[in-house]
């Protein structure tokens, strides 16, 4: 990702790259305690620090890594872990579909590289930035996206490995309120995507559906159920652009 998009955008590649890092910073604050816990837990399950590095660096999808480490045994239950990874990460299919219109201008090679780094936060900040500039037709700002991805990726692998090295010295991060950082970041992202009550109606459908499924069904099904319920609402009552 060396050549910045040059279509009439004044800021330089590095300005936009740094803006991406800065945009990601508050999200990192909430992420670090969990990364430390994940690394520590992985050590407890018998993974070496190098294996933690490979897990977080190659997979790079935090939710599925927590689930995998919880299920880890010696030897690892391969099919169970792969199946749960698919389940937890199935939301990426929808996220990629939403991002696709913003990636059309990119050569396939670059789009595929960008998609490797499509974690929740990178996707959310990236798509919010594009839509604020020009709705569905806007191109993704690649240097900005690269800044988001670099900040999250390096922090994630560095902190999980640090957690695995210092070991389980940490208690439960929820005891200090750090778990609220995740909803906090997501709520501000939602505020950024807000275009009015009418357009936000599907979100309410999603919230009610996801909360209900979370209370009634064990596992991570609530993400898929909530998302699909909101999309069904958007399909049945389309919002005109």
């Amino acid at each position, binding site marked *: 990702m060396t050549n910045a998009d040059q279509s009439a955008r004044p800021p330089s590649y590095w300005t936009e790259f740094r803006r991406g890092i800065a945009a990601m910073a508050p999200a990192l604050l909430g992420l670090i305690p969990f990364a430390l816990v994940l690394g520590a837990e992985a050590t407890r399950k018998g993974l070496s620090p190098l294996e933690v590095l490979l897990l977080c660096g190659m997979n790079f999808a935090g939710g599925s890594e927590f689930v995998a480490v919880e299920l880890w045994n010696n030897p690892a239950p391969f099919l169970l872990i792969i199946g749960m990874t698919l389940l937890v990460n199935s939301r990426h*299919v929808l*996220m990629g579909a939403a991002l696709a219109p913003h990636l*059309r201008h990119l050569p396939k090679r670059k789009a595929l590289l960008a998609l490797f780094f499509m974690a929740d936060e990178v996707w959310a900040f990236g798509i919010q930035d594009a839509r604020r500039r020009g709705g569905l037709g806007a191109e993704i700002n690649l240097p900005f996206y690269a800044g988001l991805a670099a900040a999250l990726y390096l922090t994630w692998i560095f902190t999980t490995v640090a957690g695995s090295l210092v070991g389980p010295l940490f208690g439960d991060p929820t*005891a200090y309120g750090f778990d609220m950082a995740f909803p906090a970041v997501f709520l501000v992202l939602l505020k950024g995507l807000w275009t009015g009550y009418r*357009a936000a109606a599907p979100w309410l459908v999603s919230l009610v559906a996801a909360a209900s499924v979370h209370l009634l069904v064990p596992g991570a099904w609530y993400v898929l159920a909530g998302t699909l319920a*909101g*999309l069904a609402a958007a399909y049945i009552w389309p919002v005109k652009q």
Partner: protein
Amino acid sequence: MSVSLWTFLTILGMMGVTYLTRITGYFLLRNRNLGVRAQSVLEAMPGAVLISVIAPAFTSDQPADLIALTLTLAVATRGSFLLTVIVGVTAAGLLRHLI
């Protein structure tokens, strides 16, 4: 520091599955022109995913969690990430110890 072959294969499998989920939507929609309903669905999608991921926070039966979440939501409408994270984490941490 060592890497066992089985562990490496498991991680490789996870990587393959995760990457597949990341590129599937892109390949499905890369060259399509979208109708009104499809556009409406894509428009709603980021918000629908975000609110669904954090929905469990809304189902807590702890008053401290719900008050902290309400405060976080109120601050979030101002649009500042840093301020919202600080208020959210501090409120949740304090209220859980106080209530």
